[in-house]
């Protein structure tokens, strides 16, 4: 079943002269175990939407449902939804605060009321998941490198073992190698643990590499949903909305203007285009 959002609207400061509609009439389904990409220009409502999924905001109208847990305008207890979802904010390393890496990661599981032994196990498991050396556990988080700090912050969320992991621009400010390492780690966890992942990113290359379903929002409305191939086929509209398609998809578009048998639109990563061009060229050579 996964995540089901029905008729979700959110108005900030509703009923005041400052009322501002951030989301209107959003309907979406994210299947359990999928890797969803959420894209939209700045101010489109992405953050408001993920805060609803994480149980940090209550809908003005409509419902957010994860499995049997439902939150609507009248819901009193947000705890059950929050327990299912881990949200990694932008620049999560700014929220590190404890005196050691282990204590920082343990903060969430402690609050969940787990016993010492289980907390300890979760801390080291989360460190392993994100690729942090166990020797770093006693180190102050502020002695880590930028990339390690971000991993420690994400480990703190993973240690709560959420069913759904939401990442808001997780690679901002990391170098290309750091970006790839971090998302490869997340992708592996998604595959091994069956964790549902929602990735918010301005980088279409990132989205193209990992996501199996995309949601495009603009001005608080859901504009497009579909497989990456389907969404990237709408290059013109995406550009109009201040978005972009991956470089490889643009290259395919350009090539298709010249080729008599076009390259399929489902090709939008370097890997896929490499395989396609190579096999096509080889056939040509033989024929």
């Amino acid at each position, binding site marked *: 079943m996964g995540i089901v959002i029905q008729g979700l609207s959110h108005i900030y400061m509703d009923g005041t002269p400052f009322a501002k509609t951030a989301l209107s009439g959003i309907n979406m389904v994210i299947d359990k175990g999928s890797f969803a990409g959420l894209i939209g220009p700045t101010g489109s409502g992405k953050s408001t939407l993920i805060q609803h999924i994480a149980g940090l905001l209550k809908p003005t109208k409509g419902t957010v449902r994860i499995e049997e847990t439902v939150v609507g305008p009248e819901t009193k207890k947000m705890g059950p939804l929050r327990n299912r979802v881990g949200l990694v904010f932008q620049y999560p390393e700014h929220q590190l605060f404890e005196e050691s890496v282990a204590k920082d990661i343990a903060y969430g599981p402690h609050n969940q009321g787990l016993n010492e032994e289980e907390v300890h196990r979760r801390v080291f498991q989360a460190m392993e998941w994100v690729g942090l050396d166990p020797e770093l556990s006693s180190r102050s988080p502020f002695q880590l490198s*930028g990339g390690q700090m971000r991993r420690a912050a994400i480990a703190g969320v993973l240690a709560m073992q959420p069913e759904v992991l939401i990442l808001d621009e997780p690679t901002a400010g*990391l*170098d*290309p190698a*750091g970006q790839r390492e971090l998302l490869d780690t997340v992708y592996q966890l998604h595959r091994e643990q069956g964790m549902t992942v929602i990735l918010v990113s301005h980088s279409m290359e990132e989205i193209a590499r990992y996501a199996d379903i995309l949601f495009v929002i603009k001005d608080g409305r859901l504009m497009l949903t579909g497989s990456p191939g389907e969404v990237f086929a709408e290059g013109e509209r995406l550009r109009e909305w201040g978005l972009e398609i991956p470089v490889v998809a643009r*290259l395919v578009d350009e090539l298709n203007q010249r080729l008599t048998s076009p390259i399929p639109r489902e090709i939008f990563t370097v890997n896929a285009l490499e395989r396609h*061009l190579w096999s096509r060229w080889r056939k040509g050579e033989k024929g």
Partner: protein
Amino acid sequence: MEPVIELTGVGFHYSTSESPWKQWALSGVDLTVRPGEYLAIMGPNGSGKSTLAKMLNGLLVPVKGSVRVEGLDTRNPDAVSTVRRKVGMVFQNPDNQIVGTTVRDDIAFGLENLGVPRDEMIRRIEKVLQRVGLAGMEERSPHHLSGGQKQRLAIAGVLAMRPQVIVFDESTSMLDPGGRREVLQAIGDLQRQGTTVIHITHSAAEASRAERIAVMTEGSIRRIGSPGEVFRDPDQLRNWLLEPPPSVELLDRLRKRGMPVRSGLFNTDELVEELWALLSRG
């Protein structure tokens, strides 16, 4: 032609004099920037890019070697204010660079500090807003601008000081794709109109817009040359924790599989031409 910026044997470390060992953030950096050129600086996290940027307008001064801006040594305290006016900076986070309550006030702030007369101020504001495409937005509140507009406002504020050089320190990294396009366009326009541009970025695609790219790792410049020269060796770039643009990556892989693809191509038109030729030959 006289270089606009010249670094000779620049070394820098952040540690204090009491510290027994010093970790050099920059060492042996030589760099000459020609007036009007478009230079990109790429490097992984911690490679010293931002330290270098702060060297260029005297926010930091070298421990070893020298930095000269139009011949002025940044270590000379009397030259610092002139140097800062000659070299403007645009940073990463648009929200941290805004001081005024309207677009006009935001630009006026810097000019008032310079003591520019009112008439001159009005003329300059009008002109710089036009140059970054924000004309007509004088009365808008900066906080209601989009990310790309905020960065263009930051550029206008810097332009009003009439700098010779503008340094962009990862100025597009917090923007959405549309905002990034706007700012890259503005950077290109500035350079065409004669401003020297130094663009610090992680993104190979952005760096490839420049005339020259300098690659930094561990506080030193490892390579400097045209985008074609720098991207010729993708494996080396990956060793430096960087990545070539996707198009260069694609060609490199096809070549490794045995397809006869020319090297050194990185712009889309050439690339499409080459791939099309290969496919239609078969």
